[in-house]
């Protein structure tokens, strides 16, 4: 006869409620694990979908995701001409926050060369960008409709396509525009600033006695053209030919000065170890704290449940029951509570993980590990109750 099952059957209301409470707690632990893995997935999304072998960024910087990197767009031609490189494409990144329907809309704007790569990985609805200007493709996470218009910088952009779940390393959904548009949005000055710059340059040149008025006018036009140029990008991504040596290509680009070629492996390290490390540690710590809380709660539940059964345990001992029957009853109840709570937590997460604002990635290894930890916690927690039960004297069954 299984005493644990019979006790649970009799006190099923209390047991179910306790298991639900514990299940909610374990659900939070699971979601923390999912967010922990989601941080990884988010951080590496753009890196993975770009499918580049090398990310060329500004020298002495850690690339476009970790810090500010600005390099001239034209370097793409030189990179493409390097031995071993088959394709090179400039990309521009910036985080933008605008108001949409009286609510803040934050997203990660990616500018890509329409003739290169690094654009939307898939089109779920509508089409890809065809015109050079004022069209955009947005991630479905932005919840925008096809044909919707938003103002970015000096112009209005029309949503022509919806792409999949593309997010930045901080979890913001991504939007794609043509490179020229992205450069305009990021670097183009407004008219007042342009007029002021031109006047400042003109004033400086007019003070130079050695220049004729015609020379000064010519120089003013060209210098102003340089200051107004938006042909700057945050990175140029490159793909290598099959069999090409990555290190040789990196060494070659390094020798040019002003640029840093980062391999995918290095970029992964920058993204995971540098940018999201603290968030990961924070989540890891929360998980540990929640597991400790779970252990304390299970211990308390098992202990109070054992206290409730002191007379039962004493009676069992008095009628000659072996200790293993009593230990088995407590241990099985603890494990059953853990299994049911885990199941409730798992179902809860399965039903809700897509509704979380950040990506939740449930990996079977993590879930199995958590299950093993929960079982271990239940076993350890039951020791408190078992210790108490083994100390109960059969004589306690006597009396009123």
């Amino acid at each position, binding site marked *: 006869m299984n*005493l644990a099952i*019979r006790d649970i059957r009799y*006190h099923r209301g209390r047991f179910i409620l306790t298991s639900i409470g514990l299940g909610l707690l374990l659900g939070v632990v699971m979601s923390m694990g999912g967010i922990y893995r989601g941080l990884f997935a988010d951080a590496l999304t753009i890196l993975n979908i770009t499918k580049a072998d090398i990310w060329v960024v500004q020298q002495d910087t850690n690339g476009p995701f970790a810090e500010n990197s600005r390099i001239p767009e034209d370097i793409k031609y030189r990179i493409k001409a390097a031995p071993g490189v088959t394709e090179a494409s400039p990309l521009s990144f910036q985080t933008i926050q605008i108001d949409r329907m009286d609510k803040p809309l934050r997203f990660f704007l990616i500018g890509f060369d329409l003739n290169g790569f690094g654009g939307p990985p898939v089109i779920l609805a509508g089409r890809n960008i065809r015109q050079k200007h004022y069209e955009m493709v947005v991630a479905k996470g932005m919840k925008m409709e096809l044909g919707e218009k938003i103002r970015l910088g000096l112009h209005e952009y029309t949503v022509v396509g919806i792409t999949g779940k593309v997010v930045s390393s901080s979890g913001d959904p991504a939007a794609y525009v043509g490179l020229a548009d992205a450069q305009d949005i990021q670097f183009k000055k407004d008219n007042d600033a342009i007029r002021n710059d031109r006047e400042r340059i003109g004033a400086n040149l007019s003070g130079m006695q050695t220049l004729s008025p015609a020379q000064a006018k010519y120089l003013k036009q060209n210098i102003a053209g340089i200051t107004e140029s938006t042909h700057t990008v945050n990175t140029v991504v490159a793909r290598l030919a099959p069999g090409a040596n990555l290190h040789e290509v990196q060494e070659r680009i390094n020798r040019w000065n002003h640029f840093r070629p980062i391999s995918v492996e290095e970029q992964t390290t920058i993204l995971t170890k540098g940018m999201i490390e603290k968030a990961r540690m924070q989540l890891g710590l929360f998980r540990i704290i929640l597991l400790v809380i779970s252990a304390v709660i299970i211990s308390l539940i098992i202990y109070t449940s054992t206290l409730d059964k002191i*007379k039962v345990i004493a009676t*069992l001992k008095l*009628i*000659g*029951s072996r200790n293993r029957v009593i230990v088995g009853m407590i241990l099985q109840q603890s494990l059953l509570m853990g299994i049911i709570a885990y199941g409730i937590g798992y179902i809860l997460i399965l039903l809700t993980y897509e509704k979380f604002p950040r990506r939740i990635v449930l990996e079977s290894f993590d879930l199995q590990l958590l299950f093993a930890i929960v079982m271990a916690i239940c076993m350890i927690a039951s020791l408190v109750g078992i210790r108490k039960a083994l100390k109960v004297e059969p004589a306690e*069954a006597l009396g009123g």
Partner: protein
Amino acid sequence: MANSMYAIEVEHLTKIYGKGETAVTAIADATFQVKPGELVAILGPSGSGKTTLLTAIGLINEPTHGKVIIADAMVADEGWVSGIDLKRLRREKLGFIFQAHNLIPFLTALENVMIALEINQLSSREAKRRATELLISLNLGHRLNNYPSALSGGEAQRVAIARALANRPKVILADEPTAALDTENGKNVMDLLKKLAVENHSAILVVTHDRRMVEGFDRIFEVLDGRIAS
């Protein structure tokens, strides 16, 4: 050991709690025997030592001095006999009836009797058959699947008696079995014990403070300040 004619033999049993100046003698030099089928009452006021006597015979409370022999097995001789398996002896040779019925609240009447049999290594099927028979014989056939909370006091005590009888013990020890019952139910329980002593040929030792309940017992011992007076 040769077969004795007694189910319980107690010789010079003494139980002392504490040591030195704080020592309290709960039972002093008790000697008596109980035959199989005999119904014996131990009467005495609260604190007289009657429960201590019962627990010493019930292998719960180690005697300080003296001998205890239960169904031919020497269990105590100046303390427990070394290497003795008290739990096994309690399982096989003793049956207990308590003041409060002490039924396990999350087991049905049938399961409460079955547990005593299963603890004694009986198969679940056989345990169920025997427990059912026993409960039917005690007029509880209609209560097999009821939890203790749904039973009346008298019914619950009869289930407890069935549990005590389940392993056909040589000795049944009852600690104030009628204390939680009204007079009529109390008398019914005592009548049942008398009947079982004869039918099962078990020695039944009943501790009680209620003189009205021990009419028709074979022998009555009175305990006063730890000493058996008669």
